């Protein structure tokens, strides 16, 4: 293993050391190696306390693996060249080796494997055992939404609010089939199983927003069952838990300094922006697209003011009253062709937010005379806005080809407030969703 010498030694140090110890000559090297490996392996940022530890084991193993694969490749090549057949009837030399040659090799390899396992399983147990002061959040999954409930304070759909620097224990269950709660940036994953509670914990290290993905096949909406973790500063988290709408995390807050302070007295444009933020925050955009693409629920593009046929056969106009009713008692009247899966937002959404979301939907539905042909995002260029799941970010007009610059490693699925305000992209009447 001479090839692995230096990195492996550094790794061993990294594994042994607590990252917040005082400066040590190794620290700079460990940090540089950590960043090098993380980027080379394509790992997401390390946003939880456990992530660097697990990654270090990953680096250790990948280095050993490359070394072993390299040795196999080199030895095979050398043998094939050195012992190539020189005459058609040549036969090989009979090699009889005492078994004692093999035993040390296998013993050494097995010791190495068990070392991996010992380190790995110790990490696994630390993933299993939360500190005693962990904040409990109850996670319930259903097709294809994540819901989060706190022992005290509000609940949320599609967005998990947690404080930075404090352990959070998730207790997961499912209301229908098996789902799996996966936060790549935290290196955690745990199945949500109907009929039982599973648990996992993490401690986020800094405020930010991190994607949540469902990792267990759960039906046609599986790949769109995304949510996000919003890590707030402890102060902002307390504010949010006491009923004040959460401030977006710092990066987004720069764009809308006092978003969330919905007073109902704002100018309409401001309300549209706040409505978009509220829709993202409450997870509406996970099911309702804003660009006409299909989703679990009707698209909001040109929905306001449209005529919709209910499952009962009744035809209604989508107006503020119907939208409000749908938010509070979604199963009262359902648009034909959609499953009855929307959760009620009664008590979870403030009246001001309701008004703002309605303004946002109005803005997405300009009067028919103003509708023009539909704009398409360049293929492969701006898919962030091209579908219901990521529908919170309509591609900026002018065809920017990537998502928000400097966004987290995985595209924030729902409701990044960093993008430019929505372009009210009118659609041609033929695309009007009459589903």
């Amino acid at each position: 293993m001479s090839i692995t010498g230096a990195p492996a030694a550094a790794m061993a140090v990294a594994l042994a050391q607590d990252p917040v110890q005082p400066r040590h000559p190794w620290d700079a090297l460990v940090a540089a190696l950590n960043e090098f490996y993380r980027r080379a392996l394509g790992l997401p940022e390390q946003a939880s306390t456990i992530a660097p530890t697990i990654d270090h084991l990953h680096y250790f193993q990948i280095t050993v693996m490359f070394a072993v694969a390299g040795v196999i490749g080199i030895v095979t090549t050398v043998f094939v060249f050195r012992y190539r057949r020189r005459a058609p009837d040549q036969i090989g030399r009979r090699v009889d080796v005492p078994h004692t040659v093999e035993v040390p090799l296998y013993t050494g390899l097995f010791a190495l494997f068990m070392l991996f396992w010992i380190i790995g399983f110790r990490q696994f147990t630390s993933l299993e055992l939360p500190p005693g002061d962990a904040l409990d959040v109850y996670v319930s999954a259903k097709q294809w939404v994540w819901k989060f409930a706190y022992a005290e304070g509000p609940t949320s759909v599609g967005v998990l609010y947690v404080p930075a620097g404090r352990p959070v224990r998730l207790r997961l269950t499912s209301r229908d089939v098996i789902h799996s709660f996966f936060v790549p940036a935290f290196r955690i994953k745990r199945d949500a199983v109907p009929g039982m509670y599973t648990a996992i914990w993490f401690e986020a290290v800094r405020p930010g927003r991190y994607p949540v993905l469902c990792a267990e096949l759960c039906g046609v909406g599986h790949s769109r069952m995304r949510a996000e973790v919003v890590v707030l500063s402890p102060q902002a988290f307390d504010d949010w838990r006491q009923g004040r709408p959460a401030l977006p995390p710092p990066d987004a807050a720069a764009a809308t300094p006092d978003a969330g302070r919905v007073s109902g007295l704002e100018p309409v444009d401001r309300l549209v922006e706040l409505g978009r933020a509220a829709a993202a925050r409450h997870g509406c955009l996970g099911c309702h697209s804003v660009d006409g693409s299909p989703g679990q629920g009707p698209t909001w593009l040109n929905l306001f003011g449209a005529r919709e046929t209910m499952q009962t056969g009744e035809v209604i106009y989508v107006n503020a009253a119907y939208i409000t009713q749908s938010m509070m008692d979604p199963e009262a009247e359902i648009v034909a062709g959609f499953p009855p899966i929307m959760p009620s937002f009664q008590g979870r959404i403030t009246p001001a937010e309701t008004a703002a979301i309605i303004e946002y939907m109005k803005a997405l539905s300009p009067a028919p005379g103003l509708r023009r042909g539909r704009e398409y995002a360049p293929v492969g260029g701006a898919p962030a806005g091209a579908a219901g799941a990521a529908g919170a970010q309509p591609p900026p007009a002018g065809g920017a080809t990537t998502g928000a610059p400097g966004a987290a490693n995985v595209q924030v699925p729902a409701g990044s407030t960093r993008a430019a305000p929505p372009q009210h992209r009118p659609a041609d009447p033929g695309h009007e969703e009459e589903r």
Partner: protein
Amino acid sequence: MSTTATAPRPAGARPGQERSYLGVETTIRSWLATTDHKRIGLLFLIATAAALALGGSLALAMRLELLTPEPLFMDDLAYNRLFTLHGVIMVWLFMIPVIPASFGNFLLPLMIGARDVAFPRLNLASVYVYLAGAAVVLGGILASGADTGWTFYPPYSTTTPTAVVPVLLGVFILGVSSTMTGINFIVTTHTLRTRGMHWSRLPLFVWTLYGTSIIIVLATPVLGISLLLVAADHAFGLGMFDPARGGDPILFQHIFWFYSHPAVYIMILPAMGVITEVVTTFARKNLFSYGAMVVATLGIAFIGFLTWGHHMFTAGMSTFDVAAFGALSMFVAIFSAIKVFNWVATLYGGAIAVSVPLLYLFGFLFLFSVGGMTGVAQASTSLDVHWHDTYFIVAHFHFIMVGGTMMAYLAALHYWFPKMFGRLYSERWATAAAALVIGGFILTFSPQFWLGNAGMPRRYHTYPAEYQTLHVISTVGSWAITGGLVLTLVYLIVALRRGRPAGPNPWGSAAFEWQTPSPPPRENYITPPVIDRGPYDYHPPQQEHEDHG
């Protein structure tokens, strides 16, 4: 190699025109109602190749669909059906039967000096049971196709409106077919070895078929139980796995993986046997350590039964179980490492001819090593939490299944093609195809390790946009694999018609199956051979060669 095993050889000038198994009868009935193990092997070879073509086409469509983060030409449900059927077809219609039922059937009696397998009519029945199972599965596809993934996890599989039941029943029937083959191989190996064929002289391919057969016979009934219970849950609301009725969805995962993890070794053990045969023939020397290889084969077959829980580290299993299954998985890894070490060490001191089967062996060695070592990394439990159900897992098991079993399948095809048909294929085209397949494989599946690291879950129809580059590379690789396989099909068919005659032993191998004409006569050996040496013994006492390596 004039041992007593070569009884037909002294008259060696016979150009293979005596009544080979291909020429004794040529009617369609003589093929479809044959009890000749060689013809049955060929029937399975054709059927499994068709399954490979079908499963491969589904994979191509899937890779094409994944070119863009958003849907390209199908909807979510169609995509879910696609990967389910790809998995079901590749696992049960191709990967499990391919080497045992085609090459195993063809070669097992030849290798142990028998005239046929122990139960020839059961053998014929296994073909038709396989075809019946395939028909039921394909009927389910035409009905509406399952969308549960090949793992059929309840409660999703018990509530989905798609046609899960025919697919489950079809897989059940396929299990019956492979059990028939397994029983046949075990009894054949025990009772029909020719004189002098001690257990210590069995070719490694026979040992691996034996180990595989034991796994098949012991594990397949458990698969049958779990599939029937899911079918009953789905069709009659039995509630076995439905928590709303007091059932337990995790229970299903335990019994499903109790079969389906050993099934991995059903697929890979015969592949390891093929690789052992190829490396000894093309290095023309004895195996580095025959004993270690046999112990490793049986060790994998046994320990393979005790590692199923490593598919469930994040499923809500007890922490103790996680520890136990992680550690037990390391034992399987060490047995596999013994094998890799032996293959490489066998090359030492050999007289190596780099021929097409050996190219696939190199592909196997490298890809299987990477696949195996990523398996070790997963067995260290904490890393698997991040990787579980991501593309990392997809890459890992394709390195084992495609990089392992497919490479061995292609090595076997090129190694035994002259044995089966008495003709040689074009080395040049075959080399080009091998380069395409192996290069395409690396291009297709390596990017998926990075995708998994970045957190891309498997079975995702749509995905975040920044994964697109890696997906595009992967899709391009799938075209290269397809090109290589189509090319292989073409030049092998050409070789069937116009290939040069191979002669009985074109590779100059000491292995027993080459000590009879190629293609072999109906009765395999004119007179029953008597074995007086090991299968890889190139140095019978009377002819000592000095090496000049």
